[in-house]
């Protein structure tokens, strides 16, 4: 065995191999013997390195990214997911409870769509008695084509429906305004104003828990999520109040379901950011 053979076979023979030729060469070649001794020393020292001396994972990720960008290493198979570079002091949060809550929100909205019998006559019967069917007025169409719906008799006018705070009536007469946007620099975001909700029920237990988790994981987003959650809850309450007064309005029931879907979207967006 020559020195070249030893160097080529060294990775296989370094860890205490009993190969006779290898041992014989070491006895006769001081250079190879010194090389093997140095390598054995390094291996031994490496095993004794304390865990605390391990460099942070960020260093390895940066090295890996640099090598990939230089094309030195190319991964064709899936590499492990993103490393946890900064240990989170808080407990690991399991957000799976949001999924059934979101499903419950949608189910509640779907339940609202089920028409319920009320003490008053069914809407269809009331409309038959009123004798009105929403049809455009031909005379009006010939002139200017204005609104074509006719007020039903015997049913409560929407204009007189007054949810608590008379918010809906104010909105019907005043120009609709849009919520205030906090992102600076964009005209739409800067120019919108938020309607102060008079109908805003206190957050439910699920909502409180949701906001608490948002605060823990992304504290900078809590204000945004809280304001949007309040807005959506207000919309749900307004629509529910309207349905109580107009139980036959299928559009209102459909609208309620869509508002619940928006609340689900809000939960889902938070879940996407938190996890």
């Amino acid at each position, binding site marked *: 065995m020559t020195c070249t053979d030893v160097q080529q076979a060294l990775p296989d023979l370094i860890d205490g191999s009993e190969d006779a030729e290898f041992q014989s060469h070491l006895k006769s070649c001081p250079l190879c013997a010194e090389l093997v001794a140095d390598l054995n020393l390094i291996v031994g020292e490496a095993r004794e390195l304390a865990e605390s001396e391990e460099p942070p994972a*960020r260093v390895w*990720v940066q090295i890996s990214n640099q090598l990939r*960008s230089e094309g030195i290493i190319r*991964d064709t198979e*899936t590499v492990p*997911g*993103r*490393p946890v570079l*900064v240990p989170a002091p808080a407990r690991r949060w399991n957000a799976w409870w949001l999924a059934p809550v979101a499903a419950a929100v949608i189910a509640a909205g779907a339940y609202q769509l089920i028409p319920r019998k009320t003490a008053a006559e069914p809407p269809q019967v009331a*409309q038959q008695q*009123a004798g009105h*069917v*929403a*049809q*455009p007025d031909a005379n009006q*169409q010939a002139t200017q*084509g204005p*609104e*074509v*719906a*006719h*007020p*039903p008799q015997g049913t409560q006018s*929407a*204009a007189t429906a007054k949810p608590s705070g008379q918010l*809906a*009536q104010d*909105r*019907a007469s005043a120009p*609709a305004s*849009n*919520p205030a*946007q*906090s*992102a600076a620099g*964009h005209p*739409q975001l800067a120019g*919108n104003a*938020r*309607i102060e909700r008079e109908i805003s029920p206190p957050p439910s237990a699920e909502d409180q828990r949701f906001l608490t988790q948002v605060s823990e994981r992304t504290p*900078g987003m809590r204000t*945004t*999520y809280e304001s949007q959650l309040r*807005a959506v809850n207000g*919309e749900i309450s*307004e629509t529910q109040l*309207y349905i109580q007064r107009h139980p*036959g309005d299928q*559009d*209102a029931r459909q*609208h309620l379901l*869509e*508002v619940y*879907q*928006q609340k689900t*979207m*809000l939960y889902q*967006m938070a879940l*996407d*950011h938190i996890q």
Partner: protein
Amino acid sequence: MESLPRSRVVTVVVAACLVSVAIAETKKEFRYTVSPDCNVSVDTQYGSISVRPGTTNEVVVKATLQSDLAEVDNQQSGNRIQIFSHLFQGSDQQTGRIDYELLVPPSATLSLRSSTGPLAVERLRGDLSLEGTDAVVDIHDVSNAHVHVNTMRGPITLTEVHDGHIELSSISGDITMKSVTGPLVKANSGSGKISYDGDFSSGGDYKFTTHTGDITAIVPASTSADFSAHSMLGKVRHDFPLQPRHTPLSFEEGRAFFGTVGKAGSAVVLRSFSGRIRLKQR
């Protein structure tokens, strides 16, 4: 000692500021070989994402980092590219910001997410899924693609988007559509406005809903559509000579209109809880 002219002092200060900014910013570029129908996702907490078409077999990602308190994690699994911003402790909206510019195959499927945005996509044909909290979303010149956009407060603008399923949803952001058509176009905003300027063509189903935001549609006289508009508490108005059609329900005066224009090729449903609905003729 003679004092320096003031203009020279200002010039030196400005140059120093520019140099410091340049030093603070770090630019990185990643390239991936893919097939034309690749799948690319970008997820960043803070920062913009803009996507333009490139070659058919390569994805190029250019990232601009504002500090070393954030880094770009990336992985490729065959035809699937995932890019995400990793924020370290102590980072905030400024220091954790990473802006991305992507060149992707025109048929690539995209998934973009950013809290602050903006998000911009142009001239692509692959499916798009965009999500942002306050992100301003701008999509234009997209065809034959499904487009899904969700924001909380960020405004959404679509221009020249055709022949795909389009679903836009915002809790309080405005939604603006200019020349947007397709077999299915849905837009929903709680308190934001919805504005549509187009012709409701392609024989599609169009549905715009708001809670308090106004809905305004500006269409040409040659539009062919079946219109159904109802605001529970707001006013509705149209400029068209609608052909009447029967509806089983009755509504308060000024709250709804139903009728057809032309051959009623498309179905247009406009609904609002208390916003105003206006159908204008261009």
